């Protein structure tokens, strides 16, 4: 088992490397950082631009493979290079990484836990009012894209706050820098509410549907009948035998959902004005910031693969059939 996981890890490292390289190549060949300097008034001399771009390893006159070599060398030593205007990508990433991770982790956990719980309830109460309510809600929520949902939430909060006359729930930014200590902690939590809701609501809907289907599959299986034939109550048989078994496929979806989460986070960050990795991606594409784009891609690939790895671990922990082989 340990060796298997180690090998998985090695393969993941290779996948991250390939993914980040691909993204770099793509960005380096399609983006034009020169444009940001060329259009300036007064015009900047071409030699000066070249020198600047060379310093940042962004010069399109250098063959792309050479630029890639320089970039890769840096990445291996932990240096992601410079942004389009000379800043350190590492510093920028350091500022932003926790912002995104906080949002992603909390959102994923809330989404997973609440979604699985709702799905299980829905399956047990199949065709009852609760089931229908959960089913219809999740159906509607899944049809609402994150950016619409986030905007709606922001509008609702704006009107709520205006109606109340004070800010009950914050809807822009990550925290209020004027506060300190415990107040700031509370303020940070307050700022988290809306982004977390908008990020996890879709996930909750997704998981509740998956988990409901998985549970229904399991409910008709023989072992649930066996558990009841032993003399267990229906409720006990369902939670102890059916839910426990139906968690396994849900755990495999964990990996898959994370990629979508990152996309969702990009919108959430942009709309609620958080300075996270997702917002950075959008900004850096607009600024033709090749190295930043590559860095964000690297981060996403690591996150996705880590989620895949975690979901493997989770499945192995839940399913003895996988554990042994």
């Amino acid at each position, binding site marked *: 088992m340990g060796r*298997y996981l180690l*090998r*998985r890890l090695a*393969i993941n490292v290779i996948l991250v490397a390939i993914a980040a390289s691909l993204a770099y190549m793509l960005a380096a060949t399609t983006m034009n950082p020169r444009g940001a300097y060329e259009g300036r008034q007064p015009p900047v001399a071409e030699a000066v631009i070249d020198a600047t771009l060379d310093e940042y390893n962004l010069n399109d006159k250098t063959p792309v493979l050479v630029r890639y070599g320089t970039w890769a060398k840096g990445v291996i030593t932990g240096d992601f290079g410079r942004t389009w205007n000379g800043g350190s990508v590492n510093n920028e990433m350091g500022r932003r990484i926790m912002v995104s991770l906080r949002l992603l982790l909390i959102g994923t956990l809330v989404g997973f836990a609440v979604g699985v719980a709702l799905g299980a309830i829905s399956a047990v109460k199949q065709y009852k009012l609760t089931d229908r309510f959960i089913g219809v809600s999740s159906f509607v929520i899944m049809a609402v894209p994150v950016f619409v949902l986030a905007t709606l939430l922001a509008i609702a909060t704006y009107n709520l706050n205006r109606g109340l006359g004070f800010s009950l729930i914050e809807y822009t930014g990550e925290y209020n820098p004027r506060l300190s200590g415990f107040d700031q902690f509370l303020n940070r939590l307050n700022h988290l509410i809306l982004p977390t809701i908008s990020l996890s609501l879709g996930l909750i809907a997704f998981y509740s549907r998956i988990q409901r289907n998985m549970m229904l599959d399991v409910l*008709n*299986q*023989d*072992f649930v*009948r*066996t*558990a*009841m*034939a*032993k*003399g*267990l*109550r*229906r409720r006990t048989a369902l939670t102890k*035998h059916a839910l*426990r*078994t139906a968690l*396994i496929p849900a755990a495999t979806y964990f990996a898959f959902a994370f990629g979508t989460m990152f996309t969702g986070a990009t919108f959430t960050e942009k709309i609620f004005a958080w300075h996270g990795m997702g917002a950075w991606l959008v900004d850096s594409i607009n600024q033709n910031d090749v190295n930043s784009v590559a860095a964000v891609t690297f981060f996403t690939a690591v996150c996705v693969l880590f989620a895949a790895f975690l979901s493997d671990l989770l499945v192995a922990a*839940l*399913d*003895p*059939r996988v554990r*042994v*082989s």
Partner: protein
Amino acid sequence: MSILEVRDLTVTFPGGIEAVRGVSYEVERGEVLGIVGESGSGKSVTSLAVMGLLPTNAVVSGSVKLHGQELLGMKEDEQIKVRGKTISMIFQDPLSAFTPVYTIGDQIAEAVRVHQNVGKDKAAKRAVELLDLVGIPNPGLRAKAFPHEFSGGMRQRAMIAMAIANDPDLLICDEPTTALDVTIQAQVLEVLKTAQQETGAGIVMITHDLGVIAGMADRVVVMYAGRPVEQGPVDDIYYRPRMPYTMGLLASIPRIDGEEGPLVPIDGNPPSPASLPPGCPFAPRCPMKVDMCDDEEPPLTPFGSGRHVACIRSHEIEHKGLTGADVFPVPVIPPNEVVRVPRAERPTVLELDDMIKHYPLLKGAIVKRRVGTVYAVDGISFDIAQGETLALVGESGCGKTTTLQQIMQLQPPEGGRVVVLGKDSAKLDKAGRKSLRGDLQIVFQDPMAALDPRMPVGDIIAEPLRAHGEKDVRPKVEELLELVGLAAEHAERYPQQFSGGQRQRIGIARALALEPKLLVLDEPVSALDVSIQAGVINLLDELKSRLGLSYLFVAHDLAVVRHLADRVAVMYLGRIAEIGTVEDVYDRPAHPYTQALLSAIPLPDPELERTRKRILLEGDLPSPADPPSGCRFRTRCPKFAVLSEAERRRCVDEEPSVARLANAVDHGAACHYAEEVEVITASDNQEEE
């Protein structure tokens, strides 16, 4: 007083589907009640209704009394005190019946703790004791294993252990051995008998296998279309059936002690519970049907002492002493012209010479590496002469399917030779292989999976014709459909619109389309109900005579083999254990494995079953990746167990190969100490004599 009393039980599913339509029976203490019926007869639904385990949308009425206490309509609080305590149930498929994520020990301990106020440790200890009781080796260790780590037979034993954990008064066994091989079935039935002695429980035994019932039951209920059609003491039912369905059923089963020749078929198919015929549901298939049968459904009426029959002509049957063979028309199969020529003078259509097929045993999820070898087929030789049927028999994992695939692929084997119609598969080019495929065709086991559900039957049958360049296929398709007993207009329909037996006929028609010389039959009747089986077997027999075909018949059911085959080869762990003519192998088996196999098959004959001596094998089949040294069977061989130390050496060191037995023309066994013994009807009494 009886333990269980079922009165007028009916079960209706949404859509007005009446799965069970008035079942009444009672079970006494220590008694075994057998419920037989084909698929869809309502036998399993009945037992689930008794346990209160039907889905909530099923409507159940009637009365189910356990020790005089009404179970139907009971509150869950009361139900859970009865379930698993007074009544336990053993399910058919033991793999899906255990929760995959908990250990076997934990699941048995859970059953103990639900009803007994004991601690965790004590319950775990009790679980180990129970596993020991049902004959699981190393119970302490095995209790910590997960269900998927158990073999099928072991899981069924564990299931029995769980069912008897709380000393139930009544055990309901729903097809407890259907998923198992015969030698394992014999073991499990033995365990069941032990469990019954241990608990003194009454048993309701539900199965489609009339042999199993004959050996176990005291009384029998025969179900058809959701209703009992005949019930009574086991001897009455088996020796003096008074309802045509029971008569036909008993006459239609092939027997290992039976004779060759056509079987008694029952025409038609069981009715669907959604559209029952008016009157007697068996009337459309009944050769004794009179007009009155359509008027109303005959009630189950008392008939003599302790038995009930639902047929208006039962007294007439009794009076005339009719049997199934008298009532049901038996087809006349023309004699086989080819067989008149002595075997040695006929051309050989298939020859296998020391054929080997090994699979690599792989490990690893992404980068696979080889950690061993599965010796699936490890050197087998046999040949088939024109007009002959050779049966390849053996239990799951013996390599018979691999052998068959290797032959069908027409590729060079890993070792040895495969020669089809005189052509060595290793020396074929692409065109030669394709033209040879026309002479070698296959009929598959599962009639559901063998036909593409998206193609009309006409296209399915025409597919091989078109593949071999024939343009005008229509007349040929019609001819083929008629040949297998279907109508030409059936070509327009889709496979889903046919019953299992009809689908199998379509599969046969497709296989015959290219007028092959050798037909490979892969368990062609094992997925069919008994009453349907006979018709398909007869058809195969008839086609062989009419078209001069040769068959390679792969099967696990030795009774069917006896009827269809001329010669038989018994496989064990990738090797042939015994080969010879059907008469020689069945009547005078020489290999201890063949002997055990034949003696494990239950006969639909209660008297014989009561006195029959069984040779029980120990344990499970060893893994084909790690076969024992020397003779592969020695680890389970009853003969090996009684040999002297010196004699055993030879079994351990030297792998026996098939040697012709001294006094036979066509009979060989791969055993150092082969000895012909009669086992099918061998009884304890005979031995004493």
